């Protein structure tokens, strides 16, 4: 979509300023109306603000880490402080940003709208989950402020039990509590998707965003309780000085690793599956084509969720696990590549002969496919026993999981935010700035993390604040990485600025700016409190897109609101 105000936009603008609609944002005013809201859209915004806050904290720690690694000597911080820096970065980013990022913001906003429901099945539980999240976040954050934790985000025993004098119990308590917000969100999604679909919205008419959130919710439900009980045991072990992880009492520290990764490996799929759902939507919308092999993409989400529970042992290849167990975990880890590849190939096939637009959301979708493929392929390398032993605990692993978590999950999150920003706020973001920022993020990201593959392969271990000055290239690569992190940081601040700007000064968004076929676009932007004036009846399949050339001839058709005169007719083909 071009930047200049088109005739259509002008009409929309005039219409909106003459007839301001009552929507979920202006239906009620005051701080109380937000803090006590039961509207899934407002709760999504509460989450959006809070995950952004925790992201900024996690990002600040990342900045400090990169700054320290600029030089070989430990001149900014010493090892003890550095241990805290990477621990805080990991805890904030994993538990308080990545895991809730897409499901709790975009998922909360879109799941009911995409299936044609008025709200989630349990709105009060939804609000409760936000309060639980905030309580957990505040407790953990206060642990960081009081002096911090130095165990690594993985809380491995005996670091976290016998050898740490830091605020492990408080931080762990925050994460324990936060887990229940994930569980409640997952519970809400599963029940909503099962029982609240609009008439005609059959399972195979659901947007793939819904399928991937369903798969994510399964992991929330079945994985999160295990980390909860594990962290509880760690806390009790610290407080009572007994327990099942302490070898002095006959316990087994490796049991902790098993229980931790039983959740924390599937947690990676909690981060990536919703992003995959977002990318499916973006690609269909911005190439004007139905997703190639819909049912394969849908079931591959479930397959990833199921296989994800069977691969945790690949984190224990060097932790005294038997070599036969290692071989089986290695094999199953390879198998995860199959459903992941199904998605990548099907997205690529969807783009084939499509009318591809280069709007910001699509740029992030492109970035996702490329970066996720690199992250995934290096994951296959790490699933191989021999190679994994070679690069265990090196920057190769760090680079791999950042390609999945930042290159994958973050790109999906940013792409999704741009795509649905008009729906969420009723305003357009500035497209030119959006594309520019996407480019900066992409360049910055690769410059940050690609050198880390090389560093890791050359033997640079993770979690060290200093490295030898006389190894050729190490400092060069670290400087590249730090430079990239600075660019990435700027690239992420730009959307922060223009999103805020657009809430006041952005162009009014039409009901369906892209235009897309999903139900969420068939109601005004921003939507009314109960989402739809009339419960929609679905008589079409998912992604019934037509190429723009065809639409120029026959037009995009009218949505129910346009037919009812609620929204002015909009035709993207005019632009």
């Amino acid at each position, binding site marked *: 979509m071009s930047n200049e105000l088109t005739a259509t936009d002008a009409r929309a603008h005039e219409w909106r300023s003459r007839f301001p609609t009552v929507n979920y944002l202006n239906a009620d005013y005051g701080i109380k109306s937000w803090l006590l809201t039961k509207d899934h859209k407002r709760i999504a915004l509460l989450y959006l603000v809070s995950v952004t806050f925790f992201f900024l904290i996690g990002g600040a720690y990342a900045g400090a880490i990169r700054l320290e690694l600029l030089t070989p000597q430990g001149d900014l911080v010493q090892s003890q402080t550095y241990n805290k820096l990477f621990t805080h970065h990991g805890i904030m980013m994993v538990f308080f940003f990545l895991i809730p990022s897409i499901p709790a913001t975009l998922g909360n906003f879109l799941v009911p709208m995409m299936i044609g429901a008025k*709200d989630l099945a349990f709105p009060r539980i939804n609000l409760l989950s936000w309060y639980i999240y905030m309580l957990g976040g505040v407790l953990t954050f206060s642990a960081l402020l009081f002096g911090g934790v130095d165990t690594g985000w993985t809380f491995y025993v005996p670091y976290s039990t016998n050898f740490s004098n830091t605020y492990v119990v408080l931080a762990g308590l925050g994460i324990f509590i936060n887990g229940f917000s994930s569980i409640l969100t997952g519970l809400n999604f599963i029940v909503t998707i099962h029982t*609240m679909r609009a008439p005609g919205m059959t399972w195979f008419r659901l947007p793939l965003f819904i399928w991937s959130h369903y798969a994510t919710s399964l992991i929330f439900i079945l994985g999160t*309780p*295990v980390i909860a009980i594990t962290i509880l*045991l760690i806390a009790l072990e610290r407080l009572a000085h*007994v327990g*099942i992880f302490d070898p002095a009492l006959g316990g087994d520290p490796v049991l902790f690793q098993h229980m931790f990764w039983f959740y924390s490996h599937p947690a990676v799929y909690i981060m990536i599956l919703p992003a995959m759902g977002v990318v499916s939507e973006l690609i269909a919308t911005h190439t004007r084509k139905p997703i190639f092999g819909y049912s394969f993409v849908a079931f591959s989400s479930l397959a990833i969720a199921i296989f994800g529970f069977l691969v945790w042992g690949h984190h224990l290849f060097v932790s005294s696990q038997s070599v036969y167990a290692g071989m089986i975990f290695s094999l199953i880890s390879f198998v995860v590549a199959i459903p992941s590849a199904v998605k990548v190939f099907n997205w690529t096939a969807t783009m084939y002969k499509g009318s591809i637009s280069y709007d910001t959301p699509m740029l992030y979708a492109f970035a996702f496919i490329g970066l996720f493929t690199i992250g995934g392929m290096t994951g296959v390398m790490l699933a191989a026993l021999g190679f994994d032993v070679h690069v265990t605990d090196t920057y190769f692993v760090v680079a791999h999981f950042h390609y999945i978590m930042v290159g994958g999950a973050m790109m999906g999150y940013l792409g999704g935010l741009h795509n649905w920003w008009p729906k969420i706020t009723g305003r357009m973001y500035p497209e030119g700035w959006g594309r520019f920022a996407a480019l900066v993020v992409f360049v910055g990201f690769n410059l940050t993390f690609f050198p880390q593959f090389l560093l890791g392969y050359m033997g640079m271990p993770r979690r060290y604040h200093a490295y030898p000055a006389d190894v050729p290239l190490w400092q060069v690569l670290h400087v590249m990485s730090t430079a990239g992190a600075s660019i990435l940081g700027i690239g992420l601040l730009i959307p922060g600025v223009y999103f805020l700007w657009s809430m006041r000064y952005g162009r009014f968004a039409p009901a369906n700016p892209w235009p897309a076929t999903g139900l969420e676009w068939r109601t005004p932007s921003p939507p009314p409190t*109960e989402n739809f004036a009339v419960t929609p009846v679905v008589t079409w399949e998912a992604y019934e897109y037509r190429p723009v050339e065809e639409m120029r001839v026959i037009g995009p058709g009218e949505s129910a609101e346009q037919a009812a005169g609620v929204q002015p007719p909009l035709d993207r083909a005019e632009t």
Partner: protein
Amino acid sequence: MATNAEAIEQGHAPESAHTALAHQFDNLEQQREAGTLGMWVFIAQEVMFFGGLFLAYLIYRMKYPDAFMAASNHLNWTIGTFNTAVLITSSLTMALAVWATQAGRAPKVQVAFMLATVLLGLTFLSVKAYEYHEKYTDGLIPVAGWFNPNREILSHIPANVTLGQYQMFFWLYFAMTGLHALHMIVGVGIITPIIFWAWRGRYTPEYHAPVENFGLYWHFVDIIWIFLFPLLYLLGAHFGKH
């Protein structure tokens, strides 16, 4: 089912006028379905939550069979059996409470069954507290500084068993039964307002989802105990030699 418009025409209140119907649902049937599924999903989550402890128990039971056998003999299986019977009876009274609301019995009947459930639950918890106290007086509280078994207990510990392994059993015993007891306390907390509403006659054959879902929860907590009892009290017990 008549539509709301028809219902209004015929002089009945529209279905949406039922005070229990939340705005996001189209009708009570959908609301009931969502509530029940929600409770089942919650129970699935609980299974995984307890699962971590069951896993730890199974691993260490296999690793230290002698220690666990010796330690489990310090649990009183007679009291355990009594408590099992109490809990199963409370499940029966809860099932009858659900039946009473489904069948539209008088609030008095509903409340009677629910109160019986609460009383049986409290009986269980009191017996559990007595057992905990017994462990305390025997110095079997598995916390550093408190774990101090008396000479008589120590004389029963086989030579190949370390005190740490022995303590591990009690650690798991307290963790598992403690978490179970916590769920029962929460259950008593949840049923209290339900009893209040039942007394006010809110639950009818048309709307009784809270009672039904609470029943599911209560039965689930029972089932956890059905697994805990044989694992902790009965496996390798020397009956009669306590």
